């Protein structure tokens, strides 16, 4: 891959991993068992699902880059300064840096529902969150498969705002990816992305297979009181 090129990958709905309803409920703050979701709520959920069907446009732009010297590399300044990221990239000599979005339409839908039905706003917001996570999973799976032919492996993905990797680094990620031009993501003054259902992240590439990535990633986050924090291994 040419380091200089930002590639764009667009997915159709049917190319994305299937939706995970229990994740959507978790994002919506529902932590009970699905049997507790009664008729009216389920009905509202189905309505939301129908109304936002076809609203998502799945896009990723990415770039594969060599890590020459982690401390000095002018084009990868953000690699320094985060212990968590350094740990992740240990033994990696390349990275994939990417930005992904499911588009602006879902934001408009959420905003509209804020004025009509807060329940629908909550559920569609959760739905959008699940979709973007799913897009990232799909993309990472793609890259993983692609790298198999080179006998190379990827680490899990890591985003600005995770652990000690400051949100400030979004600026550098944006400078490298130009996601505004590529797929229409822009960065706000408060380092928030628009469309809101967007993600930027880094993955390392190395020669050995990485340890299982299924470990609870919530463990690395410092926000211990987060309502979404997955319980389990502390």
């Amino acid at each position: 891959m040419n380091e200089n090129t930002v590639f764009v990958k667009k997915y159709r709905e049917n190319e994305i991993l299937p939706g995970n309803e229990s994740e959507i409920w978790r994002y919506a703050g529902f932590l009970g068992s699905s049997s507790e979701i009664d008729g009216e709520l389920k009905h509202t959920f189905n309505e939301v699902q129908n109304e936002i069907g076809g609203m998502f446009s799945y896009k990723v732009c990415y770039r594969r880059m060599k890590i020459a010297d982690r401390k000095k590399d002018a084009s990868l300044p953000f690699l320094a300064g985060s212990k968590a990221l350094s740990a992740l990239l240990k033994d990696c000599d390349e990275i994939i840096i990417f930005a992904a979005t499911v588009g602006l339409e879902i934001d408009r839908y959420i905003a509209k529902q804020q004025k009509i039905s807060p329940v629908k706003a909550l559920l569609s917001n959760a739905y959008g969150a699940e979709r973007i996570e799913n897009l990232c999973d799909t993309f990472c799976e793609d890259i993983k498969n692609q790298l198999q032919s080179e006998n190379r492996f990827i680490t899990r993905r890591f985003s600005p705002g995770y652990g000690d990797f400051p949100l400030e680094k979004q600026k550098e990620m944006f400078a490298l990816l130009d996601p505004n031009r590529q797929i229409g993501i822009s960065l706000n003054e408060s380092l928030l992305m628009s469309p809101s259902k967007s993600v930027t992240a880094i993955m390392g590439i190395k020669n050995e297979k990485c340890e299982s990535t299924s470990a609870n990633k919530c463990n690395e986050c410092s926000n211990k009181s987060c309502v979404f924090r997955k319980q389990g291994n502390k």
Partner: protein
Amino acid sequence: MTVLEYMKNNLVRLDGGMGTMLQKSGLLPGELPERWNITHPEKITDIHRQYFDAGSNIVNTNTFGANCLKFGDEELEEIIKAAVKNAEAARNTSTGAQVKFIALDIGPLGRLLKPYGDFDFDDAVECYAKTVKIGAQCGIDLIFIETMNDSLDTKAAVLAAKENSDLPIFVSNAYGEDGCLMTGASPAAMVALLEGLGVNAIGANCSLGPAELAGVVSEYLKYSSLPVILKPNAGLPKSVDGKTVYDVLPEEFSDLMCDYIKNGIRIFGGCCGTNPEYIRKTVQKAKNITPKPVTDKNITMVSSYTHAVIFDKSPVLIGERINPTGKKLFKEALRNNDIDYILNEGLKQQEKGVHILDVNVGLPEIDEKAMLEKVCFELQAIIDLPLQIDTTNIGAMETALRHYNGKAMINSVNGKEENMREIFPLVKKYGGLVVCLTLDEDGIPETAEKRVEIAKKIIKTAKEYGISKKDLIFDTLAMTVSADNNSAIATLGALNTIKNELKCHTSLGVSNVSFGLPHRDILNGAFFTLALENGLSAAIMNPNSNEMMKSYYAFKALKGLDENCSDFIENIENYAISQSSATANSPVSENLPDAESELQRAVIKGLKEKAGSIVSSLLENTDPLEIVNSQIIPALDIVGKGFENKTMYLPQLLMSAEAASAAFEKIKIKMKENPTETVSKGKFVIATVKGDIHDIGKNIVKLIMENYGFEVYDLGKDVAPEKIVEEAIRTNTKLVGLSALMTTTVPAMAETIKHLREKAPYVKVIVGGAVLTKEYADSIGADFYAKDAMETVRYSMEVMENEKAV
């Protein structure tokens, strides 16, 4: 020869990709290409020269990202000057014999504008203006605004170009596979917007290869009366053996481009992945193609940020409900700054199927200019219908038009000289379809002939301002037949002549015809049908009127405007039942013995409609306060406790809250009849702090607080500390709630608290949001950290109880 003169009779050849060429010359990832104008002038000049040598008439300066967000003022000026100089050097040394021009290239700022981003429209205009001003001083031939993926951002750049230079303006937008801009605008919507703004050429560039842009190109050629630009990518980049290659090669590219040129493209070049070879091949092959003439399509249209509404044979419905005239609740909403009420009027009309929303918020005691701008902005955040800006306040009209995302309808101008002098310059500057009332200094003429005369005068005057007939729509003024039995005849006569002889579109405020008469709806419906048959193009109407909607669907079906009568079949059911039988059918009660517990159950189960209808019937013989205190609040408490004990979760809490809101709606209306009674537990000002645009959590708190009887003043999101303080003082609230969702915006929360402590020290501040913790809340001096909506309610009740006790 100027570029405008040249393009009249010639095809115009543009250049190809700049970024691709720069990378080949050694530009590093993350490096700003604009700096190369200064550091590597010879390389930039060489790229331009290669394009001129390949046959380009226009090269774009290397200033795509040259704006004040990326560079300081001084460096910006240096960069742009150097960029123009580099292009000039190329022009002077190129061997190409063709006519050559230099365009100042302007790309998007990279910031999304409000409401979905945080960048202000006026700031964007100012930012583009800086670039334009410097460029214009350097002796460029035109301004080329390109790769814009948002309609409002495009408008900001065009306004900056218009206001700071007299240069020709070319505009090209970047479309996705769905044939729309990233923020949703269709090609027709962009044609409407940009023709309205008076630019010189429009089209598409970047993001896709030539083949994929076929749909976009054909839309442009169908709607545009301006020369159309096409500057596609060389397909998509692919990685082959560690090298990047684009999948459309010069041969194929140039063949495809020639097909488009034969179909009417007048201005062509390439974008990402193309190089001088692509341009050379295309120029050679296009050499003998005779340019297809650019014709006036004579299409009357307005647009929103997504689509255009075209005035043709099928009648256009303009919803009239956003208007305080004769509406007590609407007036009250305006006075209280209750934007949600107004938005709901818009949403309801959209649901009913209107195509355009009229927006009138004029009330003597409010700041109409600020209100109109705010309402249009909020409407455009959630409703994708074009708006008709309806005001007699010229200042308000200008501000609204300037910030409107699309090409608006303007209501209105009339035949008075002074009025035309005020309105037409605005139409010319911002674009718009203007409603022309056929009245003048002498009032409304009684006869059709005289109204037609006024119409002719308006057409003539508009022409002097450079506004063509297609942007005028005539309202021949419906007057009540109760005052003058012949008034409808005059209105219809004038309508007929204007439509069929002057060939202009027409509109009417239909319901005026029945003023002062019983069962107005019936007369309105009949008059609407008559007017449509006489050539009415659009009606300003109430979509809640069954008779009007019946006329609309029936007319379309009878006049061959409704294929297979499918619209009629699909919609007429909604209007076939009369109002009275409709309410009788609604499920008021299901024969349950105990209506009391039924309401509680409806609230707990989140049955919105049921809760509303049960309350309606209860209100017939129960005191509203009694219903609130003995039924709704206890039901909410059950849910609230369930939530606190984690036997119920947020979605369920909200379902109940919505059901309770539906019940409160009915209660509020009832209580308006007896205004001394109040359910208010106290006031509560809430906002998401500056810099933060998350508001789901904040809205949840708002809803639950309202349920518990608080009067909530919601300032929205991204609210400056000063504004929050101002509102706290204005409302004399004891409670302020602040929400922040990001680590980067929590400081704005601290700042707001500081301001509140200074100006309104008696206020208790509640904070919340995903990144906050109790410790953090304490450290920024908040009175209370609420981890969810229920905690906010509990604390607020406590505060108000203590207030009472004091």
